[in-house]
């Protein structure tokens, strides 16, 4: 136990926790997107998927708890490291240029916070249905209809799109970074990892963006 706590207390160990939880979260995103894309197959496919998940409620809860734990750990570690990093430079430069670092790498906290607020809204929106009381009148698993109704609102569609773009930025740096934090970013692997980071983040974003855009533009509807 002491070795785990000293591991986590060190800045390097803490970064590894961020990397490992990041892997889990990226995995979740991939699975989530695969399910979401069923929207293009029509209402039955999507709603059947949603219902099937509920059929395995105990497993779903295990996954949910695991996901929540990773999410919380990722955020807590990020806050801890950010505090440490701010503390490490008490006096700012009056003039500072960035030579190689990417914008996404320097704005991880910002993109992360927007993604966090999005996740909270997303849960309130579709899982708990607090934001749209009218959803309660729908059938319990009519996910399809909820989506279509929501994304007809330009505000909701825009916020979803914005969040997904920032999520892409977050992943663009995060995926490469996690390999570095776990010590896997070296030699011939470097270009592969960089390409994978860009590819995975862009593909995920395109996938997630396709749904609100398709609905808002009326390509799919009721």
């Amino acid at each position, binding site marked *: 136990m002491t070795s785990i706590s000293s591991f986590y207390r060190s800045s390097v160990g803490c970064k590894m926790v961020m990397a490992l939880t990041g892997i889990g979260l990226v995995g979740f995103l991939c699975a989530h997107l695969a399910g979401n894309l069923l929207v293009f197959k029509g209402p039955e496919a999507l709603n059947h998927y949603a219902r099937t998940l509920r059929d395995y409620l105990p497993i779903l809860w295990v996954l949910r708890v695991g996901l929540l734990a990773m999410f919380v750990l990722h955020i807590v570690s990020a806050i801890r*490291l950010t505090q440490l990093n701010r503390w490490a430079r*008490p006096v700012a430069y*009056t003039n500072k240029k960035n030579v190689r670092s990417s914008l996404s790498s320097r704005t991880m906290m910002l993109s992360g916070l927007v993604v966090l607020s999005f996740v909270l809204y997303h849960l309130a929106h579709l899982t708990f249905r607090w934001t749209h009381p009218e959803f309660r009148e729908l059938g319990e698993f009519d996910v399809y209809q909820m989506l279509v109704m929501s994304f007809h609102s330009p505000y909701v569609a825009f916020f979803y799109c914005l969040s997904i773009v920032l999520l892409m930025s977050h992943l663009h740096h995060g995926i490469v970074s996690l390999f570095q934090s776990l010590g896997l970013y070296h030699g011939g692997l470097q270009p592969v990892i960089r390409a994978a980071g860009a590819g995975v983040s862009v593909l995920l974003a395109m996938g997630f963006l396709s749904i609100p855009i398709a609905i808002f533009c009326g390509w799919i509807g009721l």
Partner: protein
Amino acid sequence: MNVRLHVWRQQSANAPGKMVQYEATDISPTMSFLEMLDLVNEGLVAKGEEPIAFDHDCREGICGTCSLMINGVAHGPNEATTSCQLHMRSFHEGQDIYIEPWRARAFPVIRDLVTDRSAFDRIIQAGGFVSVNTGGVPDANAIAIPKPDAEAAMDAAACIGCGACVAACKNASAMLFVSAKVSHLSLLPQGKIEGSRRATAMVAQMDLEGFGSCTNTQECEAVCPKEISVASIARLNREFLKASVESSH
């Protein structure tokens, strides 16, 4: 040529500092950046003002003493160049040049542009060595070392410990420095033996000194005058992970 300097002046560690403007006139483009500062200082001394304090020693890019943040970039605009090897021909007539010290909690300002980088030494003291005493060592050719390993170790060992990596990092992280030393030694059979202990001890000391964490922005690699690669940070992370796994058994 003439340039306008904006220089951080700070009397002592605890005194407040501020940017002060100086005109540097009749500068030759063949001068090194530090010789330009020498000239400005001669002018200040002639006026009875205290010259700008800055660290420098070998002036040939190897001792790692010089440490200036020039126009927002550690060691200035030229790649793979220390402040002392930068020449005024890299600037243009009338340019505004901002000069600041390395800024990090672990590198407190002593005066003006001079900072205390002894934190780096304490990190080395925590484990940046091979534990051998003088004498009684095997013949130098007793252990063959593959040439690529020796070359890779040399790449990492080229670090001059100037602290530009810390200065450039948005988190004031010392990971490039620490990883260069860890990489250099862990790539050689002589250093591999205590690799785990070294990585753990050096990372612990690094944290204790108040450096930030590495968020893999690679800004350090871009300003490193000796072009140390961030691949060495990955190597340090591996060593650290290995050490943590070993210690949990």
